[in-house]
Structures are given as structure tokens and as C-alpha cells.
């Protein structure tokens, strides 16, 4: 044994080094603080900008929206038009209107849909559940197929399965969602008659709770798959690349050196670390999923926000259109916030910025 060292070390001088670990805040507290900070510095200004932005968007459009309304409803009575102007406050200076608008939004009042004669908020909320169901199912399809095929491709790195899956991925990425939807309808509804053509349920049918659920399922299947396949290409690629990169890490070598089986290493070490980029992409892609569902709803006559948006766009029902912009942006922000927290929870290296 060699002579003692000059400098103290934890095992020659334990008392000096004991208690060296500082008291740290617990992880939930860190996450909560992160959430609060995010809300204040990011969410609030973003929402404000969007709301104010949409306000100016309405007013930037050619023709005041009362003019449009009156042309749509074929009003010619000037007195009526003047009354509408007063009701919507369009005779006031711009900043007053803006203030009124902001006030209304704070009360969750996004205006009135003149086409349906209901408050915008009500219109949005009635159409929201259908979209949520569709989006969640689509995401489930995308994640399941994407991540699983990504793992398969990564295990067969540069082999035939990898190439095949990558090609399939590029194909589904290239295929427009609406076209995939239509092709699915042609195959499964028209030719094979296994699934219904569109809609969210069979009109007039009521087979009890389970029957209704099944009915919903058959109607949900194709739209969800059409929505999910495009996204799954993205998840497949991200998972594959993340797994390949993680597999080359030193700690994977250590895991093998410990004597763990290939399965154990793949799941507990490689996949667990590859999950992080996948979650990041999940957040980034959410807005895209929302966009995709708008198109799918049009193809399948799905009564969600997308259909509402489409009908409102065609009818120039601006309050609804803008309400949907604000609302969908809010949805994206909330989801991104959740994803951010999930990521911070999964990756212990993230500290409060």
C-alpha cells in the first residue's frame, strides 16, 4: 500500500466531508416553480399577443364585419345596419373596441355566432369533445405504430426491416391526410362495407351504452388511422434515430458489461433515454395534429371543431373563426406546458432555468 496522500479525501477524513450534500428542493416543488415561471413569462404574453392579434386581424380584413354580415343576411335597411354597428361597438374608436374585446375575452365571451345564433363559446364547447376524441385516438395510433416500428427499425439498424420501415414512413408522410382518408373510405366503406363512410354515429340508432361505444368505435377507426398514419412516420423516425444514438452511449456499454440481457438493456437503458426526444417531438407536433384533424373532420363529416371552422369560414362567420384561433392556440399552449413538465420530470438533469 502506498503512503498516505497529502490532500484529505472522504475516506481519510470523513468528518470533513460529511454533510457535504446540500439540502435541495424536492422535485415536485421544482416542477411547480417551473410551471409558474412558464405561465408568467411565456403563456400570458403569448395569449395576449394572440388575442390582440386576432382583434387586429378582424379589423384588417376588407370590409367591416358588419358589412359582411349584412351582405350575407341581405340587409338593406340602413337603420338596421346602424343599430348593428352600435351593438358591436363598431362606431367607437379602435382602442375602445380593443378594450371591450379584451374584457369580453377575460369573461370567456368570444362574441356571438351570427350564423348559428349562439355564443361562440357555446359553439366551440359543443364541438370540442368530438375533436378531442379524434385527436387522442389519432395520437394513440401515431404513437403506437410510430414508436413500435421505430424500435423495430433501430434493432435492425441498416438492415432490410429498417429500410422497409423507413420507406413506409416516408410514404405515409408524403401521403396527404385527406387522400389517405378517402382511400380508406373507398376500401373499407365503399368496397368492403366493413366500416361506415362518415359521421360520428349511426343516426337514429341507440343500442345501449356498450352498443353506442362500439358504434363510436367503428366510426372513429378510419379517421383516427388516417390522422395517425401521417404522424406515425414522424414518430418512427424520431424513435429510430434516438434509439440508435442512445445505443452508442457509454452507459449502454456499462449495462452490457454488468451482464444484462439485450432485452433488458434495450428497454431500461436505450429506450428510456430515447423517450426524451420523442416527448419533445410530441409537444412540437401537437399543433400539426390539430391541423390534421381539421382536414380529417371535413373528409369524414366528423362534427368537431374542424367542421365548425370550415362551416364558419365558408359563411364568413368571423367571431367563430377567431374564437377558434384563440381557443386552439390555448389548447396547444396547455399541451406544450404539460409536455414541458413531463419532460422535466423524466429528465433529472433539467434544473430550473
Amino acid at each position, binding site marked *: *500500500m*502506498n503512503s498516505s*496522500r497529502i*490532500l484529505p*479525501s*472522504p*475516506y481519510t477524513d*470523513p468528518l470533513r*466531508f*460529511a*454533510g*457535504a*450534500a446540500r439540502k435541495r428542493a424536492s422535485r415536485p416543488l421544482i416542477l411547480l416553480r417551473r410551471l409558474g415561471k412558464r405561465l408568467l413569462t411565456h403563456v400570458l404574453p403569448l395569449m395576449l399577443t394572440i388575442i390582440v392579434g386576432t382583434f387586429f386581424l378582424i379589423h384588417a380584413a376588407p370590409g367591416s364585419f358588419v358589412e359582411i354580415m349584412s351582405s350575407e343576411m341581405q340587409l338593406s335597411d340602413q337603420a338596421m345596419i346602424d343599430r348593428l354597428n352600435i351593438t358591436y361597438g363598431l362606431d367607437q374608436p379602435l382602442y375602445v373596441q380593443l378594450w371591450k374585446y379584451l374584457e369580453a375575452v377575460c369573461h370567456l365571451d368570444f362574441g356571438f355566432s351570427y350564423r348559428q345564433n349562439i355564443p361562440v363559446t357555446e359553439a366551440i364547447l359543443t364541438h370540442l369533445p368530438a375533436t378531442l376524441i379524434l385527436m387522442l385516438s389519432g395520437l394513440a395510433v401515431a404513437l403506437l405504430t410510430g414508436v413500435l416500428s421505430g424500435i423495430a427499425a433501430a434493432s435492425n*439498424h*441498416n438492415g432490410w426491416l429498417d429500410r422497409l420501415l423507413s420507406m413506409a414512413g416516408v410514404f405515409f408522410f408524403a401521403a396527404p391526410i385527406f387522400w389517405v382518408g378517402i382511400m380508406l373510405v373507398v376500401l373499407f366503406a365503399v368496397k368492403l362495407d366493413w366500416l361506415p363512410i362518415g359521421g360520428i354515429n349511426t343516426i337514429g340508432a341507440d343500442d345501449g351504452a356498450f352498443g353506442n361505444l362500439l358504434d363510436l368505435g367503428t366510426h372513429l377507426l378510419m379517421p383516427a388511422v388516417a390522422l395517425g398514419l401521417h404522424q406515425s412516420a414522424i414518430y418512427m423516425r424520431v424513435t429510430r434515430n434516438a434509439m440508435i444514438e442512445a445505443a*452508442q*452511449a*457509454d*452507459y449502454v*456499454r*456499462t*449495462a*452490457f*458489461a*454488468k*451482464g*444484462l*440481457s*439485450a432485452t433488458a438493456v434495450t428497454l*431500461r*437503458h436505450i429506450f*428510456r*433515454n430515447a423517450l*426524451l426526444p420523442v416527448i419533445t417531438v410530441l409537444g412540437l407536433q401537437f399543433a400539426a395534429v390539430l391541423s390534421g384533424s381539421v382536414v380529417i373532420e371535413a373528409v369524414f363529416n366528423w362534427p368537431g371543431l374542424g367542421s365548425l371552422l370550415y362551416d364558419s369560414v365558408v359563411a364568413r362567420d368571423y367571431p367563430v373563426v377567431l374564437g377558434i384561433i384563440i381557443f386552439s392556440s390555448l389548447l396547444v399552449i396547455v399541451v406544450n406546458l404539460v409536455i414541458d413538465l413531463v419532460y422535466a420530470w*423524466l*429528465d*433529472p*438533469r433539467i434544473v430550473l432555468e
Partner: protein
Amino acid sequence: MSRPVLDVRNLSTAVTTRKGDLTIVDDLNLKVKRGETVAIIGESGCGKSLAALSLMRLLPKGRARIRGGEIRLEDRDLAKLPDRDVARLRGRDIAMIFQDPMSALNPVMTIGRQIEEAIRAHVDLKGEALRARSIELLKLVHIPDPEARLKEYPHRLSGGMCQRIAIAMAIACEPRLLIADEPTTALDVTIQAQVLQLLQELKARTGMALLIITHDFGVVAEMADRVVVMYAGRKVEEGTVREIFRDPRHPYTQGLLALTLHPGPPKVDRLPEIRGVVPAYEARGVGCPFADRCDKVMEVCRRQAPATIEVAQNSLNGNHEVACWAAELESERYVVTVDH
């Protein structure tokens, strides 16, 4: 004589390139006895790390493979075993620690879980017993406050601590041989000393053999019983630590030792060097790879790779061997070519 823990014969490892397989480790012969410390020394790129990875069968699939030879661990030939069987031996009979301790640990797993994983790979312990064993291992490697450490993540720990944890994981199942690939290169000098001291202590406690890969003669001097000198993928000299330091026979070894600086004012104006550069692996011909840089180079050196000869026999500690025509000429004993 007792059977060696590790008996490597004619090991060749090749790396797969676009132009075909390139042999890096060339016909390596190596023995490690029970409780012995053998050091493999050589400069970067001489193939020592690749040899170490070959011993553990940890070569990256598709990029490198063992081309030939035997790796006898007690009674089994690791080179020929199927992957699943090798996994059962890793960690249990033969273990390894690596150069960069910070990246050797999984960043998203707690220390406790990683150690438990190492234990459970070969021993069926659960719950409280498992935790107790983890703490015991941490204490063995002198980690202060082990109970608290179990819940920590690697990024919160220093390099020295991470390396000690890596050692703890490696010895968890009391392997007969621990391979340490440049275990101290990435650490501060003071921490280096601590880690080496720890390895000595563990050796004494468990009786395991140690194969330490390094480029630092200081480490060799401190730790090794026997030394293997590698150059360009081949073993050029082997002997006890005394023989290598006091009586190096291969010109490369002699050159290397001349390079080590000694305290005090320099006696010469130029720092010593070995002229030339290591030949690229693709450019290696049939002769001795050191030929172009050697002061004692002869005709035969370029024509034929030197055979390994003994220059001294010592039945207890193994033989002092050299692969050099010039050394063979100089030594008194002639071609008693050692056939392994």
C-alpha cells in the same frame, strides 16, 4: 502451476470498414493469473482498448469482430460462446470499468437502481436485502453517506465518485477478473491516486485479478505485477514490472521509458522522442511495425515479423518475452520460440 484466470491465445480483432476488415489487434497472447495485476501499456491507437473490449465480447456489432484466437476464462472459451452465455459471465466472472466515468452511468436512473441492477443481474436479492447489499458496496468503495447517494442521479456527482460507483457495480458479484480501461485518465491527479488505491484495496480484499489498460508508466509502476507492452496491435514485450523498468529489451519500450521525465533540471536541450509516427493500420506490411522508427532496425526486420522469444525465464512470475530481431541478437539465449 495454477491455471491462469485469463488465458488469451492468438487473439485477433478486426474493424469493419467500407473497404473490408482491418485487423487491429494482431495475434495477441496474454495470461493473467489469480490475484495478479497485469498492465497493458501502449500509446493511443495501439489496440489495447479494442483488445480489452474483445475480452468482454463488448465489440460494437457490425463494426468490429473477433477474427480468431481463444479467450479462455478459467475453462471456457469466451470467443466462441454465444451471446446469451457471455452475458451470464459478464459481471459475474469478468467485469470492466471504462475511461469516462461520467458518461458510463445512465443519466436518468438513480445510482441505487443502477447498482441494484448490477447485483440482480446475477444474484437474486430483493427488497431490504438488496438495498443493504447496495449500501455495503458503496461503503466498500468509500462513498460517504451511501444511503443518501442511492437516490441521487449521476450528473450530481463528481468524476471520482462516478468512477467509484462504476467500480462498485463491477465488483458487485465478485468477479475473478476486473478489466480497467484507462480508469484514471479522465480524472484529476489526486483523484487518480485515490481510485488506484481503491483498486489495490479491493484486490487485497477479494483476491481478484486486475487487468489495467493504461498509457501512463506511473500507473504501471504503482499497480502492476506484470507488464505487457503493445505497439500497433501487437505485443512487443512482456515481463515483470522490474524487468520492464530495469531491463527493457524492445527498442520501443526503451524509447518509451526514456520519454518519462524525471524530477530535477533537464539534462539535455531537447526532450527525448521516438522519431516517426505510428503506421496506419492499412499500411502495415509483413515486417515489424516499428521498423521505420527503430534505431536498431535491420534488413530482416522489414522482411519478416519478429517471433516472440524469451529473454529470461522465471517459473514463478512468468517469462520476460520480447518480439524483436535485434533483441534476439543481443540476448544470450537464442531462438527458443515460445509456442503458446
